[in-house]
């Protein structure tokens, strides 16, 4: 019944054409700016990679690039770790509790990013709850300076994107063959081995989707790094915003955008690789 290609195309193409026309094409044109010589007085044009070599020759840009990469990677890894624990806990709940808890987990997505970021200023401040708790518990003597640092951005991004990871992993865990974990247990695997050898490979799709969302989100977030980090902790996205809004340098902005997109794609591919690598090795053995 589902063999008619024309039918399938008629259904799928409107969305694809729409996305291509209003999204892909304009974005690609904009991105192509990064590969063109600027036209000055009618001279110039043509393709070049000079904008990229320029970009990476600046030590500032290198720093910002690495910082963005690092933060993105850390947020992704940490949200994966916490995400698995949380998703495990959630899928083991009864259906009603599961629905409620899932609701709470997605709550951060519904709070305006602006207000949420300000709430972090309150929480992470010198007199904020975290510092008060640390001092009360004797972990620190003086207030820690958490705000306006990579740590603050990390916390802000983690809270922002953890829900996406948890949701992806919940559905991955629920789609996992029901008896795979018990089977591994009965075959002698401890919990760590169960996770590493069975759960991880079987929830790979969810991890890849969640990981891509989190990583890409972290790279392209704007408000959180701008307010919680400021120019002390520049990220590629804030740098790009400067290029567009302050310097009207669309070429530089295109270059940064292109780099961000490539990073997202690369992360997606890397995540797929990481999750499959173990099995490839096995199959060869």
């Amino acid at each position, binding site marked *: 019944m589902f063999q008619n290609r024309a039918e399938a195309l008629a259904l799928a193409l409107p969305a694809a054409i729409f996305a291509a026309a209003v999204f892909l094409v304009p974005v690609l044109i904009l991105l192509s700016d990064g590969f063109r010589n600027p036209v000055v007085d009618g001279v110039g044009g043509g393709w070049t990679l000079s904008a990229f070599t320029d970009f990476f020759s600046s030590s500032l840009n290198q*720093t*910002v690039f690495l910082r963005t990469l690092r933060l993105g990677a850390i947020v992704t890894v940490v949200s994966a770790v916490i995400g698995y624990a949380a998703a495990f806990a959630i899928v083991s709940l009864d259906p009603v509790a599961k629905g409620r808890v899932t609701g709470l987990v997605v709550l951060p997505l519904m709070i305006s990013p602006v207000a949420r970021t300000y709430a972090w*200023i309150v929480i992470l401040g010198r007199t904020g709850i975290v510092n008060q708790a640390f001092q009360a518990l004797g972990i620190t003597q003086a207030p820690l300076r958490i*705000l306006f640092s990579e740590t603050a951005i990390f916390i802000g991004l983690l809270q922002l994107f953890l829900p996406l990871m948890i949701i992806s992993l919940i559905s991955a865990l629920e789609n996992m063959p029901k008896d795979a974990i018990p089977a591994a247990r009965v075959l002698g695997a401890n919990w760590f081995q169960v996770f590493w050898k069975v759960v991880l490979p079987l929830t790979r799709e969810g991890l890849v989707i969640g990981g891509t969302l989190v990583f890409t989100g972290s790279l392209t977030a704007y408000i959180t790094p701008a307010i919680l980090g400021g*120019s002390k902790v520049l990220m590629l996205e804030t740098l790009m915003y400067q290029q567009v809004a*302050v310097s009207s340098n669309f070429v530089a902005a295109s270059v940064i955008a292109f780099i961000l997109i490539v990073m997202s794609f690369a992360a997606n591919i890397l995540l797929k690789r990481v999750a499959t690598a173990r099995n490839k090795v096995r199959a060869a053995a």
Partner: protein
Amino acid sequence: QEKTLTISVYALSQDEYKQIVYDPFQKLCGCKLVVETGNSVERLAKMEANKASPVVDMAVVSMADALAAARAGLTDKIDTAKLSNFGKLYDLAKDPNGDGMSVGYTFYATSIAYRSDKMKIESWADLLKPEYASHIAWPNVTTNQGPPALFMLGKAVGKDTPDLKGAITAVGEKKDEIVTFYEKSSQLVQLMKQEEIWAAPIGRFTWAPFTKLGLPVAWATPKEGQTGGMNVMIVTKGSKNRELATQFMDFWLSTEVQTKLAEKFIDSPANRDVKVSDEIAANLTYGEETARSLKLIPSATALDNRAGWVKSWNEAVGQ
């Protein structure tokens, strides 16, 4: 069909503007006023993008942005002959950039808001003192307050070159101690309240909330003086409503409107005929003398060096 005038302004105090400026003007001209708000860089970037078919007829921006717009060919000369209130303006508001493309409508001072119980500020350089540096916020170079504050700091440390290198280096050396380089001045009230910071250079127009914090916050008068800025009006090149725009500008510059805006502490007047009580004056940047005393960065300097500032700033602070 009803005529429509589109203006682009700062987001500040829109409710009051509506009451004092927009609504009365709409009644006056029998036209519709559409207001776009945002910070000046974003608005300018959009004007640039819309160059071919301008959306905005008239905008208010900073002096430097006005020059930038003029250089980018986004603005037209203002027909000052048609501004009945032109003569009443302070001289330095009449043609701030000397190109006939803009008219000033308000001034603001930029100085330092600080906790008078925790510190004493006599010079811009005091902010970087070791015992203070870890309690201050500094405006990011991309904000309107950033360059003026650096400009003054340059004077204080005796290195006031147009490229602001000296000041930027001085700030850069303290970057780990300085609490933050703020983007949005609204943050500062929150930070001050939480005792995250004791001091920050701010524009006078954001001063009011600090006075309501219930903390001893004072407005500094450093020995190098205060800096500040002038906001100006421009008309967009290719605007189809030039007449209306000019009419609107004239209305805004009128003594009546400027007085009302001053009395609400919204804009310090640029109209010489505006008279306010001392109490009100104390909360504004009032009077031609005061205006003249502000150490402003010339627009051309600002413009020519802006990219360089951002670059050296990012290098000193951002890595």
